[in-house]
């Protein structure tokens, strides 16, 4: 065994088996450099050991402390059988509560009478509201139609007045025309009579 094949650090760190340890020790006994190297490693280890282990300044909080104790629901949640049992119990309790609080599904004669009365009241109320709605709608339609009629009458009167004025203007114009024509005839007749000999008259 030569120096290159000797792992002094592994030997020093306790990583070799007994056979390898014997080989290293026999080599170091006859090799001055390996012997000195082991001495230096040993001194290093002694120095490192001078660094004391500190005491824990305060007790590590154990898991029995309250802060580490699981909640009751965490205990149940982490336990399969307990979780199944709890689920079953919860379901059974829900069924019981539902059965106890739910109203009985039995129809009595009184209840039937009440139902018919309520239905009749509802129908009356509905009919009343329908009538009111129809009346209101009719009134709105009538009002709208009255307004439209008024507008149409006003427009017709306006149009009639305008037509009457236009007819009157046209009649006046015709009258002026005939008056002018009559005047012309009168002038022509007078002129003709003035030009006739006296004996011819």
């Amino acid at each position, binding site marked *: 065994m030569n120096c290159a094949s000797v792992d002094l650090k592994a030997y020093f760190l306790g990583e070799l088996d007994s056979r390898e340890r014997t080989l290293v020790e026999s080599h170091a006994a006859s090799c001055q450099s390996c012997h000195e190297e082991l001495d230096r490693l040993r001194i290093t280890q002694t120095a490192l050991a001078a660094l004391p282990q500190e005491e824990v300044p305060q007790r590590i909080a154990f*898991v029995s402390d309250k802060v580490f104790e699981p909640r009751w629901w965490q205990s149940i949640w982490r336990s399969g059988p307990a979780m199944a049992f709890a689920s079953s119990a919860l379901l059974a309790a829900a069924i019981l509560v539902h059965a106890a609080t739910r109203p009985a599904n039995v129809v009595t004669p009184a209840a039937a009478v009440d139902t018919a009365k309520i239905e009749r009241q509802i129908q009356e109320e509905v009919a009343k509201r329908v009538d009111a709605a129809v009346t209101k709608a009719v009134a709105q339609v009538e009002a709208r139609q009255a307004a439209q009629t008024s507008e149409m009458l006003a427009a017709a009167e306006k149009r009639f007045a305008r037509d009457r004025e236009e007819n009157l203007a046209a009649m006046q114009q015709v009258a002026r025309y005939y008056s002018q024509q009559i005047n012309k005839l009168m002038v022509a007749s007078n002129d003709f009579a003035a030009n006739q000999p006296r004996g011819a008259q």
Partner: protein
Amino acid sequence: MIFREVEDRDLIAQARRGHVEAYNVLVSRWEKRVFNYLLRLVGHREDALDLSQDVFLKAYQNLKKLEDPARFPAWLFRIAHNEAYSLLRKNKPEGELTVEPKTAEASARLFPVELSLAVESALARLSSDQREAVLLKVYQGFKFEEMAEILACPVSTVKSRLYTALDLLKETLAPLGVGGSRPGAEGVAG
């Protein structure tokens, strides 16, 4: 050690069945080691104590997920490692996750011995990965495989970090020319 391991396995089995007191015994057994590991990682006593609380609480809540009770120590320190690095990332989201070297005054308050100061200073010069490897091996005595499980990395990476760290520590704490005893003496974890 075997007797202790059997007892731990028994306590874990009882705790899994809901025996809280069994878990309390486990906590009392491991709290000092977990606290000191976290203290060296995060560098603050209050943070280390809070993290220790969280570690044991999470361990209790996830105890049923532990497949092999014999792996409880590595499993527990894996939780501690994750908790510590969560805090370190939160406090220093960007950049290397390193623990600031303590001042001489603070170190003197914690460890008044002069050698302790030298060791603290030497550890502070390591990278966070190297320092954690030393903590797990030298101070907690985990095997390489357990360290790989805790750190979630290959054994080769564990050895690389640890060997480099030992070389750096050796330069500071055991300079060349220092003689010592003959080989065959008990090692750190041997």
